[in-house]
């Protein structure tokens, strides 16, 4: 039942296609552009529904609050930009105007993670999961591939309340099909296994699938879980994984602090404390380079997941959730 590689496509294309579907289904879906419409694919909606597209220019704070005004007028506004600008630059607007108002505002945050590539650190947002998952009323989705991004976009448009979807620039492996299950807030178990749980979101889900394949060669059965919805968090699925596997690796294209790994740690610390190893960017900024070389450099590949799984299992088997030797942490240098 291991998911199969079906090709490569950026998740942002799923966002763009999902928006068009929403536009066809709902006449009150409107889209705000932040000048980079071709990059975050709101251009697809703009081309099809020009009367429901508004260019706001390079003004993310204004776009976020204009979206609030539209939402408070019965519209379903989407605003998309790069996550650095539409999750963090406008953080106060998201907090007060969107979340506190429970305004039905939808944000699409592109250029997530270091797989952005050559644009470098300023545009590689690695911190927004941490912020967004602390906002009351916010729904936060991190789809793993094109098809999941498409479904998630439609789902967030058809739910009521503030929601944010995180997507990437570069092509990532596709393994979901139109028939794959997707339900907001419900994590997806992709492989069976109770030796170790590999819990991931976004582009790291596929890396976990690959790691599970490699672990299987050693007779280790890993349970891969795709937590596409970071908030609301699927406590039951993650708690069960902790209880049944006893060791966890989290993997995300985000800072290791306060992101998916943080969410898993919070939940398991309360419900089922087990050793956890965290795969992610380790308290550093990104940098320029090709996506593949950056993912390699920052330890965001199946190899890091694989190694971390062995460490987590070792900690479990030694009956201690104590510390391991601090390994060399890759630091980016120009």
């Amino acid at each position: 039942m291991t998911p199969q590689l079906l090709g490569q496509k950026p998740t942002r294309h799923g966002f763009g296609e999902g928006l068009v579907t929403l536009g066809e289904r709902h006449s009150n879906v409107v889209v705000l552009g932040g000048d980079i419409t071709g990059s975050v694919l709101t251009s697809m909606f703009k081309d099809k529904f020009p009367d429901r597209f508004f260019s706001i220019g390079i003004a993310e704070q204004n776009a976020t609050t204009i979206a609030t005004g539209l939402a408070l007028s019965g519209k379903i506004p989407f605003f998309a930009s790069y996550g650095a600008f539409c999750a963090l630059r406008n953080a106060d607007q998201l907090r007060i105007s969107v979340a506190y108002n429970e305004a039905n505002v939808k944000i699409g945050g592109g250029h997530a993670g270091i797989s952005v590539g050559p644009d470098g650190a300023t545009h590689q947002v690695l911190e927004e999961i941490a912020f967004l998952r602390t906002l009351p009323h916010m729904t936060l989705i991190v789809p793993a591939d094109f098809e999941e991004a498409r479904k998630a976009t439609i789902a967030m448009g058809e739910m009521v309340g503030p929601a944010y979807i995180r997507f990437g620039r570069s092509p990532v492996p596709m393994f979901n099909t139109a028939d794959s299950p997707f339900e907001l807030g419900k994590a997806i178990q992709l492989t069976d296994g109770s030796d170790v749980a590999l819990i991931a979101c976004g582009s790291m889900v596929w890396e976990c699938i690959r790691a599970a394949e490699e672990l299987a060669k050693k007779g280790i059965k890993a349970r891969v879980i795709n937590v596409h919805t970071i908030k609301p968090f699927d406590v039951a699925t993650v708690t069960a994984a902790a209880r049944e596997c006893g060791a966890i690796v989290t993997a995300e294209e985000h800072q290791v602090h306060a992101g998916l790994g943080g969410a898993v740690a919070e939940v398991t610390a309360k419900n089922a404390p087990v050793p956890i190893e965290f795969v992610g960017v380790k308290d550093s900024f990104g940098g320029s380079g090709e996506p593949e070389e950056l993912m390699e450099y920052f330890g965001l590949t199946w190899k890091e997941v694989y190694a971390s799984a062995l460490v987590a299992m070792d900690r479990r088997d030694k009956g201690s959730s104590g510390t391991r030797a601090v390994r060399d942490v890759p630091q980016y240098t120009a």
Partner: protein
Amino acid sequence: MDIATKQSLDFNTTTFTNERREPAAFAAIANEIRRDIVRMLVRAGSGHSGGPLGSADIFAVLYFSGVMRYKPDNMQWPDRDRFVLSAGHMAPVMYAALANAGCYPKDEQATLRKYNTRLQGHPGRDMHLPGVETSSGSLGQGISIAVGMAMADKLLDRTDKRVFCLTGDGELQEGSVWEAAMSASHFKLDNFCWLIDNNDCQIDGRVPDVMNVYPIVDKCQSFGFDTIVVDGHDYADLLRGFDQFLANQAGGTGKPTAIIARTYMGHGVSFMNDKFEWHGKPPTQEQAIAALEELAQHP
């Protein structure tokens, strides 16, 4: 405390209708709003006195001249015009206006800033006080929300609904205010009326000393607003401003309107008048009684 003094601290049940009036007729409404502000703040023991008192005349005309169409018994009426208080700290004056319009019981004003109140320290939409269209308090955001509302009304729903928004003048230091202003004229929102309470005071001092925002008129004009300067304590002048907004909308000028209302912080209470020190504090009981006595002399 004698009975008359004690009664002056209590809320009454007087309400006012929203209709075209002679300028002089707004004085009694503004006076009642001011007294309610004092009554609210002295009970709360914290909050902003200066801005609410200084803008009471603006609110008297905004809510009680017929320029803003709403139904006090149904503030969710879909065809209503909307008001957004971008300067959220001025909540007491909006709460007093809504109470005096009959949108909610006047004695509920006594709960300002108390636990579980609908009259939150800064407006909170989650508490569902009738007439509070949005939460606000982080300056510079309300005006963008108002622009979004005006876009929905004019560009998407194609109605003649109006959106009013009040910012302070210190608030103009928030850069996003000008992002909103840019988009109001970009989208030709002649259904949008921006009120600037220009009292020249903010919490740290005089506005030009803290960070100069002048010339405000030139800025508004260059951002594409039909810009009118009025005496914010002169009802005829305020009506002139609102009438020009209505004419702009009716004429389809495609230009948003900015009404810059020159006011004095704390106006109506002589010991607060034009003193920035009264931006963010309530009166003591003695000060409240003195204020109410003074206001009672000019009903």
